[in-house]
C-alpha cells in the first residue's frame, strides 16, 4: 500500500512561495546575459565618459524607444520588415517545397543539384544585390527577391534531404495496400519530410532575416535596416541601437513563437523518426 501511495506524495504541489520563486529564477536565467550586457555598456559609457555622438547610455536608448513607438514610427518600420519576411517565407515554401520534392524523388537530379545548391548557398543574397538593384531599382521588389533567394535555398535543400531519408519500406508497404502516387506523397513523403522541411524553414528564416536587414540598408525603402542606416547619416546613435535591439528581439519572437512550436509538434509527437 505504501508503494501505491508514493507517486501521490511526489505529485503534491510545492508550497506557493517556492513555486513563484522558481518561476522568477527561470526568467532570470533567461534575462541574465542581457542584464550583464547592459551593465557593461552602461559601465563603459560612465567610465570613459563617451560623448553622445559615439555612445549613448541605455537610459537614453530607452527614452528614444518610448518616443519612437509613441509616434508610431517604429510600427511603420517593423511592419515593413515583417511583411516582407512573411511574404518571402510563404512564397519560398510554396515554390521551394515542390522543387525539393521533385529533386528528392529523382536520384540523378538530386546528385547533380547538390553541388549547385551548395554553390548558391555560397553566393549569398547580399552578393546578388548589385545585380538586382540594376534590374529592379531601389524598390521593395529588390529586397523581396534577395530575401526569397536566401530563404528558398535551405528550404529546397532540406526538403530534398527529408524526402530522400524516408525509408523505402514505408512507400512499398503503402503501395501494396493500393496507394497511388498522390496518396504516397500526402501520407508518406510529406509527413516524413516535414521535420526536415521545418529545419530548412528555420535556417532559411535566420538567413533571410539577416539578408532582409542588409538589403533594406542599401535599398532604403523602409524597414529596420533603413531605420538604422538612415540614423547613421544623421549620427543618431540612440536610433541605431533601438533598431538593433528590435532586429534581435523580433527574430527571437518569430523563432520561439512561430517556428519552434511547429518543430515540437512534428518531431516530439512522432518521436524518433527511425525505429
Amino acid at each position, binding site marked *: 500500500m505504501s508503494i501505491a501511495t508514493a507517486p501521490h506524495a511526489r505529485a503534491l504541489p510545492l508550497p506557493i512561495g517556492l513555486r513563484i520563486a522558481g518561476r522568477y529564477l527561470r526568467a532570470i536565467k533567461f534575462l541574465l546575459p542581457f542584464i550583464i550586457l547592459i551593465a557593461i555598456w552602461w559601465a563603459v559609457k560612465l567610465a570613459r565618459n563617451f560623448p553622445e555622438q559615439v555612445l549613448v547610455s541605455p537610459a537614453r536608448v530607452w527614452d528614444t524607444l518610448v518616443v519612437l513607438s509613441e509616434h508610431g514610427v517604429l510600427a511603420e518600420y517593423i511592419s515593413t520588415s515583417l511583411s516582407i519576411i512573411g511574404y518571402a517565407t510563404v512564397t519560398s515554401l510554396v515554390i521551394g517545397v515542390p522543387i525539393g520534392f521533385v529533386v528528392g524523388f529523382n536520384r540523378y537530379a538530386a546528385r547533380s543539384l547538390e553541388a549547385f545548391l551548395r554553390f548558391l548557398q555560397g553566393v549569398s543574397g547580399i552578393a546578388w544585390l548589385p545585380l538586382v538593384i540594376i534590374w529592379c531599382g531601389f524598390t521593395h521588389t529588390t529586397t523581396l527577391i534577395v530575401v526569397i533567394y536566401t530563404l528558398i535555398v535551405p528550404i529546397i535543400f532540406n526538403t530534398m534531404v527529408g524526402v530522400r531519408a524516408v*525509408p523505402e*519500406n*514505408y512507400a*512499398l*508497404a*503503402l*503501395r*501494396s*495496400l*493500393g*496507394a497511388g502516387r498522390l*496518396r504516397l506523397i500526402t*501520407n*508518406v513523403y510529406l*509527413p*516524413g519530410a516535414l521535420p526536415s522541411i521545418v529545419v530548412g524553414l528555420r535556417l532559411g528564416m535566420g538567413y533571410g532575416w539577416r539578408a532582409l536587414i542588409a538589403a533594406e540598408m542599401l535599398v532604403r525603402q523602409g524597414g529596420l535596416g533603413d531605420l538604422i542606416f538612415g540614423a547613421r547619416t544623421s549620427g543618431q546613435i540612440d536610433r541605431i541601437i533601438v533598431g538593433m535591439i528590435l532586429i534581435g528581439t523580433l527574430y527571437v519572437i518569430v523563432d520561439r513563437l512561430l517556428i519552434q512550436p511547429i518543430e515540437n509538434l512534428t518531431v516530439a*509527437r*512522432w*518521436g*524518433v*523518426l*527511425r*525505429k
Partner: protein
Amino acid sequence: MSAAITTDKIVVSGFRHFFNTADGPVQATGIIDLKIRSGEFVTLVGPSGCGKTTLLKALAGFLRPSEGTIYCDNKIVRGPGRERGVVFQELAILPWRNVRRNIGHGLEIARVPKAEREKSVQRLIELTGLTGFEDRYPHELSGGMRQRVAVARTWAADPDVILMDEPFAAVDAMTRLTLQEELARLCAATHKTVFFITHSVDEAVFLGDRVLVMTRRPGTIKAEIEIPRRKLGGRDWETFTTDSEMQGIAEQVLRLVRAERGVESTEEKRESSAGIVS
C-alpha cells in the same frame, strides 16, 4: 512456359532475376518454378543472399522479373496490388500514425466507410493482442508490438495473398515464439494464402503447410517438404518440440539447409563485398 489456366493462387513460371551492378549484371536467382494453392501457408528457407527477398519482391510486384512470369489468380503480376499484402521485417508502419490509424490505413485507401473500417480495425486489434494500445504511436511500442501492428495492418486490408519477409527476425527470441503462435492462430481464423520467408528452420517447419528449401546464390528451389499439419494438435511450441515427427522433419530440413551453408561462408563474404543485398 505457357500460361495454362490453373486453380493455383500463385504461379511462378521460369522466373530468373539479374541485378545490374557497376561490374555488369549479377545473377540473383536461378530459374524458379513454383505453385502456391489457395489458402496454403508456404515457407521458404535458404542461406542469406540466396535470392529469397528478390523472389518475394517480384511476387509483390516491386520489381519486374528479368525472365519468366508471375501469375496471381491467372493474371500476370505487373506491379503492387491490394490483393497481395506485404509484411516487412521492420520500418514499415508509419511513425506519425497511431496504432488504430496504421491498422486502418489500407481500408482508408480503399475508401471503406468509417464505421465499417472501425469495426474491422477493432477486430484485428483484438486478434493481434493490441487492445489498450490503440492510441499509441509506434515509438511508444516495443519491437514485437510494432510487428503486431504491421501484421494487423496487412490483414485488415483483407488481401487474398500475404507475403512476409522475415517479419519476426528483428524481434527478441521470447517474443518471437509468441508472435509465431499468434500468426498460426490468425491464419487458422482467416483464409489466407501466405508466402513466408525465413532463415530459421524451426520457424519454417512450425508455420508452414509446405517448406521450400533454396540453394545458395543464385538460388533455386532444391527441395519441397509437405508438413502433415493435421496430425499436429495445438499450434504451440510445447507441442511442436515434443512431437517426434515434427522434430524429424525439422532435422531433415536443417540438413538440407546446412548442405548449402557448408560452402557458403567464403562465397558469402565475396558476394557481400560486391555490395549486393538480396
